[in-house]
């Protein structure tokens, strides 16, 4: 069954790596719903957050292919239940309309929005949340002449993750320590041995 998966990839900061990762999806004709690149908690290590709609089997194989890339340190995939995520949205609306027709105070409170810019001709609101939440504010603002709307890619934190500092130390060892478990996928133990 297809569902939304969030793929988190820790990488070196290398020119061309975005393309190397992106073509792994397009080669398999998988549409990327959202893609974000940002620094991570570790200096010099970049973090990709990619959202796709696929079956678990496809995602697992894809993540192993991504992790195989030389400049990729580690790739994870998670369902929505396993992560906390946000998207940021900006809305530009005519200031006079807003002032007249909408109770700005209620708007801000109900949608967790805040005004970023207020000018005579327009006002820009900002909010963040899940897609449904940012979508809802569109429907509120459309009747009052929404001029422009833009939404960022998803950023996500894996609930179970302890960050990348410890992991990186393992990678920096010239010889992997025998206890280093790079092949975590084998840890399904019983599942792997089921015949």
């Amino acid at each position: 069954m297809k569902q939304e998966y969030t793929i988190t990839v820790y990488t070196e900061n290398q020119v061309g790596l975005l393309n190397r990762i992106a073509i792994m999806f397009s080669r398999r004709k998988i549409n990327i719903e959202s893609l974000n690149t940002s620094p991570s908690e570790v200096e010099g290590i970049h973090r990709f957050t990619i959202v796709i709609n696929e079956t678990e089997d496809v995602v697992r194989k894809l993540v192993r292919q991504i992790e195989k890339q030389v400049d990729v340190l580690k790739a994870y995939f998670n369902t929505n239940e396993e992560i906390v995520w946000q998207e940021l949205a900006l809305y530009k609306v005519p200031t006079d309309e807003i002032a007249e027709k909408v109770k700005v105070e209620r708007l801000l409170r109900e949608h967790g929005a805040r005004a970023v810019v207020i000018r005579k001709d327009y006002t820009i609101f900002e909010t963040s949340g899940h897609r449904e939440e940012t979508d809802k504010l569109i429907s509120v603002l459309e009747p009052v002449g929404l001029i422009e709307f833009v939404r960022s890619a998803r950023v996500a934190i894996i609930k179970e993750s302890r960050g990348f500092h410890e992991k990186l130390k393992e990678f920096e060892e010239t010889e992997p320590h025998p206890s280093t478990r790079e092949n975590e996928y084998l840890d399904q133990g019983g599942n792997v041995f089921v015949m």
Partner: protein
Amino acid sequence: MDTALSTAPATATQQTRTISGSQAVCEAMVQEGVSTIFGYPGGAIMPIYDALYGYEDRLEHILVRHEQGGIHAAQGYARTSGRTGVVFATSGPGATNLVTGLADAMIDSTPLVCITGQVFAHLLGTDAFQETDVINITTPVTKWNYQITDAAEIPEILAKAFYIAGSGRPGPVLIDITKNAQLQLFEYQGYKPCHHIRSYRPKPVVRKAYVEEAARLINEAERPFVIFGQGVILGGAEQEFKAFIEKAGIPAAWTILGLSALPTDHPLNVGMLGMHGNYGPNVLTNECDVLIAVGMRFDDRVTGRLDKYAKQAKVIHLDIDPAEIDKNIKATVPVWGDCKETLPMLTALVQQKAYPKWLEKFKECTKSEDEAVFQGELHPTSDILTMGEVIDTLNQITHGNAVIVTDVGQHQMVACRYAKFNQSRSNVTSGGLGTMGFALPAAIGAKFGAPDREVVAVIGDGGFQMTLQELGTIMQSNVKVKIIILNNNFLGMVRQWQELFHERRYSSVDIQSPDFVALAAAYGISGQSVSERPNLKTALETMIDHDGAYLLEVMVGKENNVFPMVPQGCGVAEIRLK
């Protein structure tokens, strides 16, 4: 031109000196132990060729006739020598001509380092003369690629390139160097080979529990079957592999790239897997109870229809590449690691055994195949020569000691099926990509990679015409390769499919050829053409005995088919004997 550089040891204490980026490229080649470079000069790589002029005593450069020929030659070199092949090409068309070879090396895990020239950094993105976006064009077909715009990066990046190309699951690496970086002078601090990249772990830690579980399955098995691929050769684990199957007493079959890892006449070698493989290995894949895959990737040409493949068997998969495990076939017990390491661990845990009844089944299958296929192919009753008897006669002369380089198509399948091999790294072919035109240039490289061995290229009349310009390379560099063209005046494999699956509608397969012997003669290469059985053996002997390159054209049956065959979309047990 400073040629004394490489005599100094590459240590961190070495004094810095000012050299050009191009010299640093040559210096890296020397330090990496490269002796042969295949390449073709051009505008954007001229500074490197200029530096190369001063390294002529240490770096042999083979001028090819086309960059595709250069990269296939480097592949052939890597396959017979076990070392990383090196290619130089210029920017633009020079670089794009490498793409087929890169894709071939990528899918067949061949270690290559390709150096391409690039326009000056300030011209990048301006549609400058002979500018192409080589990095992005080659990204999907390289293990790693990188563009250098500053000469100071050259030593470190080239060290990384060689390390990445040759370690773990090998593959092609492309380094694009802008002309300004080639010309730029910088403070050279010596060459330090690369042994570690933090984001890259070529050799995983072997999980012992999985080896133990695999051994338990093997020890409990009644009809175990080993299938092996190029991983055995790439891991240099031929002896470890032989020790394993001999102790466990398990019959073993090979993929096209695993061929020659185990001698042909080994009693446990039961033959070839896949679409045109042997009858027994295909049929009995669906009768074994434990299937042990070693360094192979369950390609669709090996498995046929996946939902009809070894459904009854527990699968043990030994591979160095985690992405291969569960990719096509779900592994009951995955053993992720270098088989040079995992096979001895497994050998230590398996019981000494033999399976005479099970092995007998393979022999029965061979008997059926002998009646239906071998007899007609190797001992034909008509006057028309078959491809099989050419290979069989060649075996009688070379006794399985030659390197056999094949192209793609019917002759490739026949050569792989019937050629005998006594030692590893003797079979060079384009397996995964199926690149017609591969064999002639690959044979050139194979000879440089194994100069003391007989190298015989077996090529079809179609494939030969795709890269025949490399006869010029053979002429100029005096490459002593033997070329057999199996000429059926058809693009035979496509014709076979048209006959079997497209109602004999022979669309565009009737290919005309030049006078191959006269063509070779124009390049100063001796040769002859044979079409009659009594002349075949003498002609082959003349070819082998000739001191120098030789081209032998053999006219074979126009409409012969390669059997057995697992038709596309069928399971391996549905293999057809005719």
